[in-house]
């Protein structure tokens, strides 16, 4: 039984359809799920009261372990324990069970289950956050992971934007923020203006391969250098990596920290001070400041225009980083927010907004982080949508044929700021086919590129003279093809702890049973309110639902198609609901009349 939450006035919908949506921060090191309950954004805790789920998955031959329970396997079974999968999102994947999309989908499934257990029902959808600087491949891979986990993606939301929502709505009416987001494996800087509930992103910059992990690695290398011995096994390497992270965390509270590590059967001890760490990390930190300056340039702002600096990501607890930002902006960064949870909370607020549960206005105008371009003659990239364009955005470009009778052509789509094709990310090669045969140069094929509110690209093409829609064949340079996704979906069923469909069917079954029971009871007391015909219709539907409930062992089909037992059951329940709605209001009227004439409700 689900416990109730308070809704906004007049927003309440039908029972069983309470539009609960969740926000998920899918992080390199830790992931979180949050929702808005009675108007407050809240991180959902697991059974052990943990808010953070380590983004770690362990694969045994027939068991997948996610989160805290998987942590131990980092040192006992590092080969089968996947950490920091987010760093490899959007890269060419092999189709083993351990590719980054699959690992991410297993983490998302785990978070989804925490949400279901906490909410007592399946959320209608999720907002999933991504680094603002993620390119199209990385965003597509994230969306695919969510689909494989059976989540309805309401929106992919940029992490710094999510943080700004969580911060801005709580604290301020208007102003210009700079969000400095150093995650486990990614760095983003975002500049936004907030004005009466409208968040307008002015510029973003970042590096999807620079994060807290890299600072751990600096300490790791420093230790190896100092003691002059390298780890001889995966296990030693993993242990030293964890020790390095612990030192980084300790140094954000203390002046120095001591490490004891066992390498090659010898115990070593070493002291690292904040000064050591400052020297080690200076160049990485300066690299992030360079990106901050680029974003300011693109936003046509100076340091003095920034009202507040919001810190996101556990790594922003580093003392040296806070000091550097303080010096650079001449003001202290905000530390009132928990940098670990702020992104998930913002995602939850936007999810609640997209699910239609908010009365006040909240609008996000985000941007595309990287320029979109096409390959032209000589291996050069021609930009067609510049970086920091507000999304959604469309651009049309005309192409023509260079040979008589030519019926096909290829378009190579790129993302990045560099001039040479080889220096940009290759997104896809599109083959335009079915161009009507014409003299060279006569055909005019208008190709329209659209980047939607998720930051995802789609392409369409029309030959302008004939109006013929060219068919487009997409060959993603990276990521998964639809066939690969289908195969992974099937795979995930094999691995899933409990079959999603069985659970969904069981939920539909419970709803249907309670519906039938309630109506049967109403029929016993009030069937005289119905015509014979109406009553027969209701009884027939009840019989059909009972047959459907008793006779079915749902096949594990993930596709929710028209033939699935759950869909049939839901449709029957909806029918029954419709057919009995007149009956319900008649009963209501009867009850009110009875009430007015002083009868006790129990006697009706």
């Amino acid at each position: 039984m689900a416990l109730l939450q308070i809704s906004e006035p007049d927003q309440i919908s039908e029972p069983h359809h309470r539009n609960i949506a969740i926000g998920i921060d899918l992080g390199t090191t830790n992931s979180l799920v949050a929702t808005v309950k009675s108007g407050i954004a809240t991180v959902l805790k697991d059974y052990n009261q943990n808010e953070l789920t380590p983004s770690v998955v362990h694969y045994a031959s027939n068991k997948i372990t996610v989160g805290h329970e998987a942590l131990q396997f980092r040192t006992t079974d590092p080969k089968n324990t996947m950490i920091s999968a987010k760093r490899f999102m959007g890269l060419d994947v092999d189709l083993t069970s351990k590719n980054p999309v699959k690992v991410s989908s297993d983490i998302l499934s785990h978070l989804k289950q925490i949400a279901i257990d906490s909410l007592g029902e399946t959320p209608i959808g999720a907002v999933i956050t991504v680094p603002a600087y993620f390119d199209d491949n990385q965003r597509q891979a994230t969306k695919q992971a969510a689909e494989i986990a059976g989540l309805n993606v309401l929106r992919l939301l940029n992490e710094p934007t999510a943080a700004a929502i969580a911060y801005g709505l709580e604290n301020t009416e208007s102003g210009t923020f700079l969000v400095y987001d150093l995650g486990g494996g990614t760095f983003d800087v975002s500049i936004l203006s907030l004005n009466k509930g409208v968040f307008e992103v002015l510029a973003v910059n970042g590096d999807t391969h620079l994060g807290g992990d890299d600072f751990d690695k600096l300490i790791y290398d420093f230790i190896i250098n100092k003691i002059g011995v390298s780890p001889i096994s995966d296990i030693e390497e993993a242990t030293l990596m964890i020790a390095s992270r612990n030192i980084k965390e300790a140094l954000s509270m203390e002046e120095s920290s001591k490490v004891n590590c066992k390498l090659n059967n010898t115990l070593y001890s070493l002291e690292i001070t904040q000064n050591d760490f400052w020297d080690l990390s200076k160049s990485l930190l300066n690299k992030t400041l360079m990106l901050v300056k680029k974003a300011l340039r693109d936003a046509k702002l100076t340091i003095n225009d920034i009202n507040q600096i919001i810190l996101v990501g556990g790594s922003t607890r580093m003392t040296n980083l806070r000091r550097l930002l303080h010096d650079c902006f001449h003001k202290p960064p905000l530390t009132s927010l928990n940098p670990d949870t702020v992104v998930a909370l913002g995602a939850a607020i936007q999810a609640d907004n997209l699910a239609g549960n908010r009365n006040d206005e909240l609008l996000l105008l985000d941007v595309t982080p990287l320029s979109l371009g096409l390959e032209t003659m000589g291996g050069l990239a021609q930009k067609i949508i510049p970086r920091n364009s507000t999304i959604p955005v469309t651009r049309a470009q005309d192409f023509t044929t260079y040979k008589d009778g030519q019926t096909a052509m290829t378009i190579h789509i790129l993302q990045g700021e560099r001039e040479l094709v080889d220096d940009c990310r290759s997104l896809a090669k599109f083959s335009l086919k079915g161009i009507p045969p014409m003299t060279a140069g006569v055909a005019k094929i208008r190709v329209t590129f659209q980047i939607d509110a998720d930051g995802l690209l789609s392409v369409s093409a029309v030959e302008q003279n004939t109006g013929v829609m060219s068919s487009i064949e997409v060959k993603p340079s990276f990521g998964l093809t639809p066939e690969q996704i289908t195969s992974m979906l099937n795979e995930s069923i094999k691995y899933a702890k409990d079959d999603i469909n069985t659970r969904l069917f069981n939920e539909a079954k419970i709803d249907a049973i309670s519906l039938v029971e309630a109506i049967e009871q109403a029929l016993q007391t009030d069937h005289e309110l119905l015509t014979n015909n109406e009553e027969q219709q209701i009884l027939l539907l009840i019989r059909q639902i009972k047959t459907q409930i008793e006779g079915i062992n749902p096949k594990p089909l993930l596709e929710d198609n028209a033939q699935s037992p759950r869909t049939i059951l839901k449709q029957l329940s909806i029918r029954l609901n419709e057919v009995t709605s007149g009956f319900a209001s008649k009963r209501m009227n009867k009850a009110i009349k009875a009430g007015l004439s002083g009868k006790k409700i129990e006697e009706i």
Partner: protein
Amino acid sequence: MWGKFHRLKLMNNIKQILKKNCYDIFEIEPQFAIDTALLSTKLHQLQKEFHPDNAINNELSTNLASAHINNCYTTLKNPLNRSIALLEVNGYLLDLAKDTQLPLEFLGEQMELHELIDEANGNISALEELEQTINDKQKQLLVSLSDTFINKDFQEALNLTKQLGFYTRLLNSIADKINE
């Protein structure tokens, strides 16, 4: 019932938006000088209605209308694109890629500036200084451009817009060099 009415109304509004030119969408007088604060307020108003985040509860796709509004916002915010759009409103089409005929004196100055950029050789402060110089020149040009539009001297506006195109290219090239 109300839902259906709302859908029809929204569908009609989307059609209207896609048909209109940028000045009409933002309900701004077709002049070169514009109030950028007003532009931003107007963008927020329009997107509150058309952004797909708000239209998610009905199945209508507002992506195209929302994108068209964003495109127009970018066009009007950027002086070069605004000038081209304003010329178009007045019946003059300008294709910067093809139409580059300008006085030799101006082209000579452009050559010089390009050489100066190359000579700066990635030196950030030299590039920033150069950027400042070109920015000043561009500002003067924008004032003249605004006047020619007020005087409805569209032939001269065409010429100045072409020059503005050259300055914009210079500034972009400097920005790219600084970013590298």
